[in-house]
């Protein structure tokens, strides 16, 4: 059984480590520092931690000002506030200016659970990936989260990193290389490919196991960087399998599936089925219950894979 750790926990720990190494790192939070786990950094480096109160728009632009002076600000809140409340600040001040601000938001997706729809951000990938200059990342587990945070520091420019509240299985290992914009092929199979991000990567691996029992061999791609999308790997995989499923904890409009479909439609169109939330809000409930309700389970992915295969051109 894989170890279960929330990606937000890995974030807090990565910040602690980075704080020691890089004195230019500053962290801003909007009164959610215990939940986002930035409070750990705040406790150890109080001079470089700014709690901005419940005022996200100001937080984002304060970070912009810090970035103009050579600081590397990490800005955190729940994803609904960090991307929804502040979209225009992120667009006009951070991305238009190309500033080196890292927005790392937790509590994305329905896996937020009992807090309900108001706090379950399922539109943030779409909101962030439409902005020019923005990079959008959703790590699949705690190990990859840490790598993405380290890589974000070395990358110059704005980045959005999407994290979750609930514990998720650790499915990657520390030794595996990590490059922003480079997809990670976790498993090779010639019948169908499942391209996923975040918590849906683990479910995709489970779906691939189920499919294998039925004699269907699936490729599983961890598309941790949604923008810029690794088109090279995507097209290579598409040519090998000729049927695809995308899987994400996000609305179908404008998310990973949308990015993949847009990319392949122009280069190598193949049948694509999409796992995601179809024009609905979330609701209160435990993450497992909600994953069932919104059809994000391994069995949903396996079913979609079979459907994609039947749509292949004979």
């Amino acid at each position: 059984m894989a170890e279960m750790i929330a990606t937000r926990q890995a974030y807090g720990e990565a910040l602690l480590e980075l704080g020691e190494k890089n004195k230019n790192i500053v962290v801003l939070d909007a009164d959610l520092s215990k939940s986002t786990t930035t409070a750990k950094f705040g406790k150890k480096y109080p001079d470089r931690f700014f709690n901005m109160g419940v005022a996200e728009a100001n937080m984002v632009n304060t970070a912009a000002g810090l970035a103009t002076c050579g600081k590397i600000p990490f800005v955190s809140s729940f994803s609904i506030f960090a991307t929804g409340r502040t979209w225009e600040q992120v667009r006009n001040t951070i991305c238009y200016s190309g500033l080196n601000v890292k927005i790392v938001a937790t509590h994305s997706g329905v896996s937020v659970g009992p807090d309900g729809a108001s706090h379950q951000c399922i539109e943030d990938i779409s909101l962030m990936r439409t902005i020019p200059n923005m990079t959008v990342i959703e790590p699949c587990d705690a190990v990859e989260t840490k790598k993405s945070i380290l890589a974000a520091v070395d990358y110059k420019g704005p980045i959005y990193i999407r994290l979750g509240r609930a514990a998720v299985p650790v499915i990657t290992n520390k030794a595996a290389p990590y490059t922003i914009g480079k997809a990670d092929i976790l498993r090779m199979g010639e019948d169908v490919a499942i391209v996923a991000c975040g918590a849906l990567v683990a479910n995709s691996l489970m779906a691939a196991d189920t499919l294998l029992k039925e004699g269907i061999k699936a490729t599983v791609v961890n598309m941790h960087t949604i923008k810029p999308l690794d088109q090279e790997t995507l097209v290579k995989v598409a040519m090998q399998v000729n049927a695809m499923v995308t899987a994400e904890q996000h609305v179908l409009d404008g998310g990973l599936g949308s990015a993949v479909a847009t990319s392949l439609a122009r280069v190598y169109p193949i049948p694509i089925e999409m796992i995601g939330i179809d024009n609905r809000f979330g609701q209160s409930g435990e993450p497992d219950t909600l994953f069932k309700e919104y059809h994000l389970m391994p069995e949903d992915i396996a079913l979609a894979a079979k459907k994609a295969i039947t749509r292949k051109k004979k």
Partner: protein
Amino acid sequence: MKIAQRLDNKSLAERSKVIRRHIIRMLARAGSGHPGSSLSTVELLVALYYNKLRHNPQLPAWPDRDRFILSKGHACPALYAILAELDYFPLEKLDTLRQFGSILQGHPCMKTTPGIEISGGSLGQGLSVGLGIALAAKLDKKNYRTYVMLGDGEIEEGQIWEAAMAASHYKADSLCAILDQNGLQIDGFIHEIMSSHPIPDKWRGFGWHVMEIDGHDFKAILNAYDEAEKVKGRPTIIVAKTVKGKGVSFMENQVDWHGKAPSKEEAERALAELK
């Protein structure tokens, strides 16, 4: 490093006239833009750039420079004219305002224009950026100052008050806001559209040091800038009463001149008044 040259009030007045002439010519040529909002800022900006800011046009990114942010970004023709006069870029560039491929975008763009600290134009965001710069100065133990110009229509944005609260909380005493209080916004007089009065009391309530001055009087402006520098433990706002469209009789205090460029004939009339 270079400290701003000191001009006497007569020279500052002459500079202001030159800047106003640039504004009128630029907007007439561009065929769009914001004359009223640009003209009201002129004395405040001329006094700041010629007599107060520590900056170096040959080295716009000098780390120890004082920073200026034009949060009411639509007044950028005034700022562009000053930056050009100070040799941040050639004067001829002023003729390209708002044109395709120009370094002078319709609203400030830090990527294209030397001397612009942050891209702007969307109201309400500059004070927060200024706060971030002030916090960075504190972290780096630098003594540069940050000035942010706000419009009195702009402060209807909620984010301004988020920033006001946070700047006070973080005792950002290197931050100085300049409120260009010209009394008008796009749709009409401020008091008719959205009454924000009493403005000075609101800022006092948020913990700021507040000064109220005539925003066209150089002596008052320079005294205010000097006083702001001495305030410790809290940010300062200079509430500067100004006249929208100042210097051009038919534009003064006229709401229609917020966002309309003068025709060729109107520009000639304006320039005649600014001789």
